[in-house]
C-alpha cells in the first residue's frame, strides 16, 4: 500500500489532464475529417426500400437518426429516420429524402442497380434497360447493356462524337429515362462489386478527384482548378513576399543601426503580424482592387471601361494581399536564421577586409539559405490555408478558366480563380440542401489539411536540423 494520497498530486494530474484534453480534441476532430474524407470515394451500397404505402425508393443510406415523440397519453416512443440519397432528381428535386424506418416494409440490395455518373446533372441511380444506337435498340437487359457499354468504353470518347448513342435506364418504380452516352462519365453497379473492384473504383475516383474539374455545381467531380489556382496564387505570392521579407530581415539584423527608424520597422513588423486576416482583405479590396486596379484600367485598358479588367477581384490582388499577411512569417524565420549565425564568422570575414555586403553574400547568406526556405514553406502553408481575405479580393466558387493557360499572354493575372480553402467554404456552407456537397467538402478539407500539415512538418524538420547543426558548430 502506498502512503496516504495528497490532494496536491491529484491536482497535478488534473492539470496534466487539461494538456491531454487539448490534444485529444484536436486529434478527435482531425480523425473525423480523415474518416469522412477518405470514405468519400468508397462505393456505397444501393438499397431498395419497399414502403408500406407501396412506394419504392432506391438510394444510399447516408445516416440514421433517432427521433423521440410523445403521444397524447404521455407515452414516449423512439423511432428512427433514415436519410436517403435517391439519385433521382426528376422525382425528388433535393435528391435527399427522409424515410421513417417504421414504414419500411422490406429492403434489399439488388445486384443489378447501377450508379450513372453524368457529366451534367449529377448521379442517377436505376437499372439498365436498353442500349440505343441511332434510335435502334441494340441490346436489352442488364447483362447485354453492360456488355455493350463495356465493349464501347475504350473508344467511348470517339463514339460519343460520332453517333447518337444512349442508354435507357429504368428507375426503381418503373419510369424510363434515356441518358445520352455523351453525358455519361462512368457507370458502375456497387452491389455487384467485389472488394478488389471496390478498391480499384476507390483509386480511380481519388485520382480523378485530383485531376478533373468539378461537376454539378461543385457537388461532384474533382478539384483540379482549385488545386491549380491555389498553387498559382501561392507561387505569385512567394515571388512578391520573399524579396521584401528577406530584405527587411537583413535590415533588421544586419544593416539597421539602432535608433528610432529601426524601432519603427520592428513595431511595423509586430503590428502587421497582429492584423486580422479579414482586415487585410478589406485593405486589399480598397487599395489593390479599386485603387491600383482602377488606375491600371484607366491607364492601360481605357477601351474596355466601364467593364473593369484589373479593377475587380483577381489572382494578382489575392496574391498581393496574402503577401502582406505572410510578410511577418518570412521576416521572423529569416531573422531567426540570421541570429543563429555565429558572430565569429562575420567578424572573421570583416577582418579579412570584406565589406558588409560581401560578408552577407558570401558568408551569411549560404548559412541562412535553409532559414529562408523555412520561411518560404511556412508562408506558403499559411497562405494555402487562409481563406477570409480572398473571399473579398477575387476568389470564386467556380471558374472554368485557369489563371495560366495556352492563350496569350499565358498568365492571366486579372482572372478570378478557384481556391481549395474557398472550395471547402462553398461546399461546406450551403444554407439549404447543403448535404449533397458535404462529401466533397470533407475530401477537400482532408486534402487542404494534409498539405498544410505536411508543409509545416517539413519546416519544423528543417529548422530542427538547422538548430542541431548550429549547436554542434558552437560546441
Amino acid at each position: 500500500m502506498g502512503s496516504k494520497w495528497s490532494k496536491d498530486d491529484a491536482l497535478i494530474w488534473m492539470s496534466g489532464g487539461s494538456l491531454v484534453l487539448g490534444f485529444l480534441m484536436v486529434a478527435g476532430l482531425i480523425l473525423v475529417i480523415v474518416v469522412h474524407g477518405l470514405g468519400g470515394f468508397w462505393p456505397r451500397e444501393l438499397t431498395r426500400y419497399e414502403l408500406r404505402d407501396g412506394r419504392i425508393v432506391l438510394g444510399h443510406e447516408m445516416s440514421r437518426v433517432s427521433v423521440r415523440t410523445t403521444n397524447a397519453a404521455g407515452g414516449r416512443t423512439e423511432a428512427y429516420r433514415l436519410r436517403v440519397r435517391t439519385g433521382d432528381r426528376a422525382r425528388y428535386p433535393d435528391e435527399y429524402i427522409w424515410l421513417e424506418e417504421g414504414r419500411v416494409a422490406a429492403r434489399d440490395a439488388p445486384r443489378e442497380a447501377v450508379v450513372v455518373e453524368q457529366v451534367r446533372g449529377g448521379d442517377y441511380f436505376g437499372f439498365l434497360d436498353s442500349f440505343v444506337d441511332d434510335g435502334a435498340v441494340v441490346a436489352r437487359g442488364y447483362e447485354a447493356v453492360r456488355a455493350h457499354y463495356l465493349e464501347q468504353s475504350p473508344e467511348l470518347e470517339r463514339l460519343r462524337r460520332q453517333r447518337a448513342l444512349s442508354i435507357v435506364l429504368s428507375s426503381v418504380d418503373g419510369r424510363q429515362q434515356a441518358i445520352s452516352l455523351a453525358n455519361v462519365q462512368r457507370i458502375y453497379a456497387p452491389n455487384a462489386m467485389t472488394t478488389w473492384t471496390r478498391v480499384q473504383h476507390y483509386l480511380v475516383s481519388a485520382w480523378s478527384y485530383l485531376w478533373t474539374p468539378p461537376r454539378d455545381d461543385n457537388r461532384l467531380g474533382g478539384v483540379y482548378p482549385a488545386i491549380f489556382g491555389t498553387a498559382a496564387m501561392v507561387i505569385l505570392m512567394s515571388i512578391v513576399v520573399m524579396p521584401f521579407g528577406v530584405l527587411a530581415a537583413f535590415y533588421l539584423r544586419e544593416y539597421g543601426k539602432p535608433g528610432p527608424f529601426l524601432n519603427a520597422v520592428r513595431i511595423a513588423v509586430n503590428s502587421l503580424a497582429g492584423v486580422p486576416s479579414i482586415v487585410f482583405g478589406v485593405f486589399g479590396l480598397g487599395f489593390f482592387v479599386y485603387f491600383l486596379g482602377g488606375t491600371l484600367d484607366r491607364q492601360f485598358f481605357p477601351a474596355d471601361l466601364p467593364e473593369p479588367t484589373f479593377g475587380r477581384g483577381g489572382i494578382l490582388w489575392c496574391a498581393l494581399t496574402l503577401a502582406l499577411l505572410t510578410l511577418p512569417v518570412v521576416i521572423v524565420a529569416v531573422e531567426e536564421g540570421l541570429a543563429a549565425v555565429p558572430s565569429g564568422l562575420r567578424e572573421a570575414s570583416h577582418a579579412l577586409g570584406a565589406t558588409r555586403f560581401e560578408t552577407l553574400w558570401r558568408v551569411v547568406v549560404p548559412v541562412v539559405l535553409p532559414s529562408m526556405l523555412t520561411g518560404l514553406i511556412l508562408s506558403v502553408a499559411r497562405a494555402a490555408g487562409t481563406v477570409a481575405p480572398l473571399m473579398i479580393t477575387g476568389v470564386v466558387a467556380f471558374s472554368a478558366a485557369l489563371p495560366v493557360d495556352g492563350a496569350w499572354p499565358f498568365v492571366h493575372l486579372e482572372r478570378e480563380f478557384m481556391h481549395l480553402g474557398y472550395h471547402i467554404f462553398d461546399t461546406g456552407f450551403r444554407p439549404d440542401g447543403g448535404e449533397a456537397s458535404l462529401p466533397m467538402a470533407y475530401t477537400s478539407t482532408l486534402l487542404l489539411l494534409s498539405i498544410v500539415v505536411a508543409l509545416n512538418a517539413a519546416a519544423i524538420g528543417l529548422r530542427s536540423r538547422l538548430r542541431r547543426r548550429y549547436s554542434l558548430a558552437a560546441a
Partner: protein
Amino acid sequence: MTERARGRRMDRRRMLDLLVGRLAALGGVVLILTILSVFAVIMWVFYPLFTSPFTSPAEYPWGVSGPDGTASGYPILPLISGTLKGAVYTLIFAVPVSVLAALYASQFLPRVLKERLKPLVEIMAAVPSVVLGFIGGVWLAPFLASHVFALFLAPVFISGAVVAVFLIRHYAPVRFRAFTHPGREIWLLLVALLAGGWLALECGTLLEAAWLRAGYETWFEESLGLTFTQRNAIVVGMVMGLAVTPIIFTLSEEALSAVPRSFLEGSVSLGATRWQTAVRIVLPAAGSGILAAVLLGFSRAIGETMIVLFISGNVPVLDWSAFTGFRALSASVALDLPNAARDDTLYRVLFFAAFLLLVSTFAINTVAELVRRRLRRRYA
C-alpha cells in the same frame, strides 16, 4: 594591378555595399508604409460616413430600430456585441485549458517530453481556421446539439475519471503500477479522459431517455425558458478555443519557464509541495506573461473569421446566451462585402467594421506587448 585600378575596384565594392544597405532600408520603409496605409486606406473609405448627412433613416448605418422593433440600415451594435460574445466564450474555454496545460508542461513534464510536445503544438497552431470552422459547423455542432446532457456531464465525469485513475494507481501495489516514470502519466490520463467522455455520453443518453420528451429545443424552451440553436456560442467557444489554445499555451509556457529556478528552490526548501510551489509561487510570478498570452488569444479570437462564419449561425442578436448564436463583425465583412457596391453606404460601413477590428486588435496587441516587455525586463 595598379593603384588606380585597385582604388576603382574598392569604390565599386563600397558602392555595392551602400546600394544593398539602402535596398534593405527600403524593405524597412515598405513595411512601415504598409502598416500605415492599411490604417489610412480603411479610414479614407469610411470617413465620409461621418461627414455626409444621411438622406433617409434607411441609410443610417448603425441601424435604426423602428417602432415595431425591426431594424433598418446596417445594425453594427449587435455585430460588436457578437464579436465580443464569441471572443469571451472562446476565452472561457481556452484559458483554463491552456494555462493549466502550460503550468503542467513547464513544471511537471520532463524536458524530453516537453521538447517532443513543441512541434505538436506548432502543428496544432497551423491547422487552417477554415478546416476547424468546417468541422465545427458541420460535424461538432450537430453532434453536440444532440448530446447536450452529455456535454453538461462531461466536465464532471472527466475530472472524476482523472481522480479515479490517479487513486487506482496510487493504491495499486508498487509492482503493478504502470508508467512510473515522471511524465508517463500522460498515457493514463488519456485513458481517463476517454473513459470519462464515454461515460458522459452513456449517462447523457440515459438522461435523455428519462427527461426528454421531444428534441432539445423543446426541452430548453419548456424547462429553462431558453432558446436553443444548433450553432451556438458554446460550439464557437470550443472550436475557436482550440484555435487560440496553441497561442495562449506557448506564450504562457514561455512565461512560466522563465521564472528563475531560485524561486522554486526557495519555496520547496521551505517545505511547500510541488503543486503549492507551482500555483502560489510560479503562477503569480509569471502572471503578467500569462495575462499577455490571454490578451493575444483574445485579439486573435476577435479577428478570427472562418470559424465564426461557419459556426456562429450569423444571426445578429444582442443576447449573450450560451445556447444561441450571434453574428460577428469579421463574418459580416466576409459575407456582405462581396455584394457591396463600391462607395455605397454598405461598403463604407463594412470598412468601418474592419476598422473596428483593426483598432481593437492593434490596441490589445500593443498592451500585451508592453506587459510582456515589463516581464522580460524583470527577469532579465
